């Protein structure tokens, strides 16, 4: 049995807590190989401009949440700044092909980090009612994983002499902010999270046929299943079938890409 699935419980509380503490170490242990591979192999020589079309077009005055590795994005109002249209070209003009995809991927991961951080802050402030402990753990752990994903893609950009992306996806950010403003409980937060995770997972899935570098495909494909796992647990929390499904809740054997950006 693979080491990451072989666990023995002696009791529900202490053993579960111990495993959670191990997660952080595992994240770093497992993330490095994929990221290092990408760092050594990815080059920005592609002509392709995947994700640079309508989905990533930004309008002047879009609100971008600025986040970065090591920071803890807070609620939208405290952690965002309004960028001018000149600031907002996205992906940055110097990024082409796989590097442009990397920039978009970072922006999606940043948005997820922002959303989970905002959710945790709202929960701490008592704005979401009673928050089950498992939900808080979920949000904390998932936020950290999304930060690692963002770091991995940013490392790719940096290794190619490009600046890291520290903004959230400009197309989706206004909608997410508006939706988040309507969230009043854990159920609403989980539903918003499912949307973000689904967009991320489907985008990575679509990238497998669009990225040119094998290392980039490898990195993208190593992240997609993790986002899908986040989705499964979110559905479980909501009392729904814990897997990909139609809007009416019918399980799907093949994940679609209709929500990819």
């Amino acid at each position: 049995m693979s080491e990451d699935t072989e666990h023995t419980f002696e009791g529900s509380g202490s053993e579960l807590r111990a495993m959670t503490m191990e997660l952080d170490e595992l994240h770093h242990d497992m993330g490095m190989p994929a990221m290092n591979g990408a760092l050594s192999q990815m080059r920005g020589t592609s002509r392709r401009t995947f994700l640079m079309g309508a989905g990533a077009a930004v309008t002047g005055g879009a609100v971008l949440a600025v986040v970065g590795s090591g920071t803890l994005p807070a609620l939208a109002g405290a952690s965002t700044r309004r960028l001018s249209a000149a600031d907002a070209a996205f992906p940055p003009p110097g990024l082409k092909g796989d590097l442009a995809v990397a920039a978009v991927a970072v922006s999606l991961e940043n948005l997820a980090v922002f959303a989970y951080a905002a959710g945790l802050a709202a929960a701490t402030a008592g704005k979401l009612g009673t928050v089950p402990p498992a939900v808080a753990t979920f949000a904390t752990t998932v936020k950290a994983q999304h930060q690692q994903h963002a770091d991995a893609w940013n490392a790719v950009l940096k290794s190619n002499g490009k600046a890291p992306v520290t903004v959230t996806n400009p197309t989706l950010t206004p909608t997410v902010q508006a939706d988040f403003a309507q969230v009043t409980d854990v159920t609403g937060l989980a539903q918003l999270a499912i949307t973000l995770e689904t967009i991320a997972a489907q985008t990575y899935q679509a990238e497998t046929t669009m990225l040119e570098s094998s290392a980039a495909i490898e990195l993208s494909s190593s992240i997609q299943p993790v986002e899908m796992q986040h989705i499964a647990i979110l559905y479980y929390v909501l009392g729904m079938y814990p897997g990909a499904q139609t809007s009416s809740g019918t399980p799907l054997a093949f994940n679609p890409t209709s929500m990819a950006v």
Partner: protein
Amino acid sequence: MTGDSRALAELLEESQDLQADALRPTRDALDELVETGHARRDDDPEVSRAFHEEHTRALTASLSGAALLGAAGGAVLVGALASAASASSPSDVQILQTAASIENLAVATYKTALTLPYIGGSSANPVVTKFAQVTMGQHAQHADAFNAAAKSLGGKAQTKPDPAFVPVVNKAVASLGSASATQGALGVVGLAMELENIAAETYVKDTVLAKKASNKALFASVMGIEAQHVSVLLAVQALLKAGAPQLISLSPGTAASLPAAAGSLGFPNAFYKTNSAAPAAQGAVK
């Protein structure tokens, strides 16, 4: 639990009805395969061989140290598992056939598991039963899709299970006979989780190995589904081991009762690994 059972039964029924819809992306991919499938037959045997050697080492290490089941007693997989697949053909065809062989093994394993009283019988948790039923059906769809893609490239359909894993599964299932319900359920969950993880890791790797874009898309559409199966099984395993089977429930209020750490058990790694991926040719048609 009654509500869960009814809801899941409805979902299963809908799932069967909508199987054709679910397969639409695959059919689209297969259409593309038909158009492009014969354009290139440049699979590199040397690349396949190197990949095979590399991953045979990793997988052998993974499975040889595996205590797939902690439980004792059980039935033996027969029929479909009696004759295993083996290797050789072009790379995209090989990896598609290998994928089909993994799916075939998963279907056979879930089918056998559902004959056990604590998985498919009256003493079973209805959520676990329905999960096994839905998941078995999904694996059958995956096998069909992989085989259709292989045939579109001029290969044969793989109708047998992966030969490397059959002995392991047989041994594990054979040990289930005298197990208690909890032990048996844990054994089945552990075995299923191992197979799901191998499938997920294999398909993650296959998105890089596959030459045809349509094949990459097919593997990408399935890898996350298998990873979700792993997540669910991780959660179920944890709750069974914690002596809290009542929390294996799809009632909306269940989340409030879950221990804090349960919120992170379903996704142990930030990046999905591939060290347990099946070698590309392992399940190919001989």
